[in-house]
């Protein structure tokens, strides 16, 4: 193994204020309530900033601002709306390094990921949907598709700015205005995005950012003047949202949890499969709703594959997210770390065998080593529940039919992976997997032109592509 010298990205590029208000109607305003929370760097537990907790009255102010802005924004020619969104895309590209560092500081993800995956995709997403704004009548939703109104959007902490882009870009392109609530542990890039809206001269009220936790989100979902609810997060909260909009005319899209099977056949290119398995479950510390958290490997190659996988895991570098050599960053919060620990302990208690490479853990911050469980049964909690951490459960199969049976044996249906060199087998598998995204001989690939979203309890609606417009149009 090579020795690596530290190669930290400088954090001097970011300017974090000691405290933030709410971004309503194009202005920074103080919250009406007393609530304040701190956002910390999960790699050091250092407090980064104090964040306002928006109350119901604050959410109401934001929705009113969005409602007022809707009249002008929706009536604006699509070509003009497009230019605002293009501007936003360009400013994101200009400030990409700063935003990547800010994201890694607040979220704990390696700078290599925020720099090379998150930020390029964020800019691309705005660029893609900007182009739709003046072409909606060609999108296949009728000659004159109309926006819905005010969109209430709630996003998770695993890809803070990317999820913001997935929500805001199509909403604005279709002529809606938005009130967005970032996750309470990762609000900083959304607050930086508010500044970007100002730099782009976006009309006040078109984008409003309210920070806070579940109660703020609940107030946004329940607000009677919200026409559209878009949520990415846990299936548990998704259920609450689906219940609370019952009987209303609010349009809802939900992108929820997953327990994806990553299926490796004996004829697969095993070295590539190993890279795909690592990317599938250890990318972003496994904080990925579509993570390949269940490895299904054909019995005949299970030993060989596991050996190669363990060898590869031994080379992963865990540590400072700002270090450009880092593969595995920090777990986003103490609460998430506790959940990963609890489920891993359940894995051991239920009889699965646990393995992690030798992996020094920093003294401060929230960390969990890459972990593999073998001898996992389908009934084990680690095979059924979403862990949302760097923990892989390994199961085996003999026939394609058994692989399908096991892969689909979950209430989730977000994604799946298939590794084989045989085209007909790949397509046979792809057609039988009950999942919204199937990656074959690759994993965790995203693109603004490509629809993403789940089957079953992984939610409904699609984000990305032409399909993603439907969520923001009255049909």
């Amino acid at each position, binding site marked *: 193994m090579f020795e690596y010298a530290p190669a930290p990205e400088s954090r001097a590029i970011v300017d974090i204020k000691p405290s933030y208000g709410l971004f309503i109607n194009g202005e920074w305003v103080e919250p009406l309530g007393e609530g304040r929370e701190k956002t910390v760097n999960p790699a050091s537990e250092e407090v980064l900033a104090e964040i306002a907790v928006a109350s119901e009255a604050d959410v109401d102010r934001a929705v009113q601002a969005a409602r007022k802005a809707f009249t002008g924004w929706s009536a604006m020619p699509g070509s003009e709306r497009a230019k605002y969104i293009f501007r936003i895309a360009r400013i994101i590209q200009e400030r990409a390094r700063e935003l990547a560092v800010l994201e890694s500081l607040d979220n704990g993800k390696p700078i290599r990921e925020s720099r090379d995956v998150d930020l390029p995709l964020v800019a691309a997403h705005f660029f893609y949907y900007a182009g739709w704004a003046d072409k909606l009548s060609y999108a296949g939703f009728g000659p004159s598709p109309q926006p819905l109104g005010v969109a209430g959007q709630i996003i998770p902490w695993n890809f803070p700015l990317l999820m913001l882009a997935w929500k805001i870009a199509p909403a604005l392109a279709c002529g809606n205005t938005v009130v967005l609530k970032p996750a309470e542990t990762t609000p900083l890039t959304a607050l930086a995005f508010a500044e970007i809206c100002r730099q782009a001269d976006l009309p006040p009220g078109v984008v409003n950012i309210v920070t806070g936790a579940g109660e703020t989100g609940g107030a946004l979902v329940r607000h009677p003047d919200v026409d559209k609810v878009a949520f990415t997060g846990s299936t548990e909260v998704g259920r609450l949202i689906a219940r609370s909009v019952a009987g209303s005319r609010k349009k809802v899209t939900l992108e929820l949890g997953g327990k994806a099977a990553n299926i490796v056949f004996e004829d697969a290119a095993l070295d590539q499969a190993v890279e795909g398995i690592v990317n599938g479950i250890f990318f972003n510390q496994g904080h990925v709703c579509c993570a390949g958290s269940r490895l299904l490997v054909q019995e005949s190659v299970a030993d060989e594959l596991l050996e190669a996988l363990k060898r590869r895991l031994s080379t992963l570098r865990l540590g400072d997210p700002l270090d450009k050599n880092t593969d595995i960053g920090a777990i986003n919060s103490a609460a998430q770390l506790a959940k990963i620990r609890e489920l891993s302990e359940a894995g051991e208690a239920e009889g699965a065998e646990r393995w992690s490479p030798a992996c020094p853990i920093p003294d401060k911050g929230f960390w969990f080593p890459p972990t593999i469980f073998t001898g996992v049964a389908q009934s084990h909690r680690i095979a059924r529940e979403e862990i949302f951490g760097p923990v892989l459960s390994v199961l085996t199969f003999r026939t394609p039919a058994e692989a399908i049976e096991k892969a689909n044996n979950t209430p989730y249906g977000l994604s799946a992976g298939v590794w084989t060199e045989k085209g007909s087998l790949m397509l046979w598998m792809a057609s039988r997997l009950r999942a919204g995204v*199937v990656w074959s*001989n*690759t994993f965790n*690939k995203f*693109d603004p032109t490509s*629809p993403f*979203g789940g089957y079953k*309890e992984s939610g409904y609606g699609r984000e990305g592509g032409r399909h993603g417009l439907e969520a923001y149009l009255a049909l």
Partner: protein
Amino acid sequence: MSERLAVRKTYKLFIGGAFPRSESGRSYVVSSSKGEFLANASKASRKDAREAVAAARKAFPGWSAATAYNRGQILYRVAEMLEGRRSQFVAELVDADGVGVRKAGELVDAAVDRLVWYAGWSDKIGAIRGSANPVAGPYFNLSSTEPTGVVAVVAPEAGPLLGLVSVIAPVIVTGNTCVVVASERAPLPSITLAEVLATSDLPGGVVNILTGSAAEIAPWLAGHMDVNAIDLTGADGELAVTCEEAAAENLKRVLRPPAAKVDWLADPGTERMTAFLETKTVWHPIGT
């Protein structure tokens, strides 16, 4: 010579391709629009609903894997069988719906035409709803439609034939299977329609029809964990809210009741198909 006494039909449920009575042994009186006794219809229970869901689930793998061409032909066959029973349905609609013979004829014709229209969609909806996506990388990237699964359908109270056909056809043409709660007031045409379905090469269990109280049965279907979606077209007010709340438990796709009264004779659009379709996106690297 005395007039011959007619042989009446016993109206039962339609589950898994068979016509069982309700396991509960219950029935209820169905009257014509003028208040005359027409028949005793089966009053389905919660257990009947569960049997129907099991039948629909069992039929799903085969029906969803059938070729689109095959599904289209079978829907067209349903139209042929319905056409052949035109006079029977006209008579039933006159009794059930209080419409005149002429209007009833129009409604039956429209139901036949609606089936033909949807039959043709079987191998076309994928072309207008799928896409080849130009991703920024060396990947083949294709999105295609797939059926959602088992769909519970609360059929409209009004429109015992045309309304019923208009909610069933779009659900099954794309490969879903369904459990339908028929119009409570006018359930008899639904069971006669079941006889049409049973003789149209439609595999048993693809369509299951329950008669009885929607308020009693629909919430069980809405809360059933093996139902993937629910069409609340015929559920009004409180019932629709109750069902939508129950549907949240396993995140069913919900088609809410229409905001305005539906004109079943109008162009239906594609919404009733797309509400019960999933989009699957497949990625594969391109390389040598």
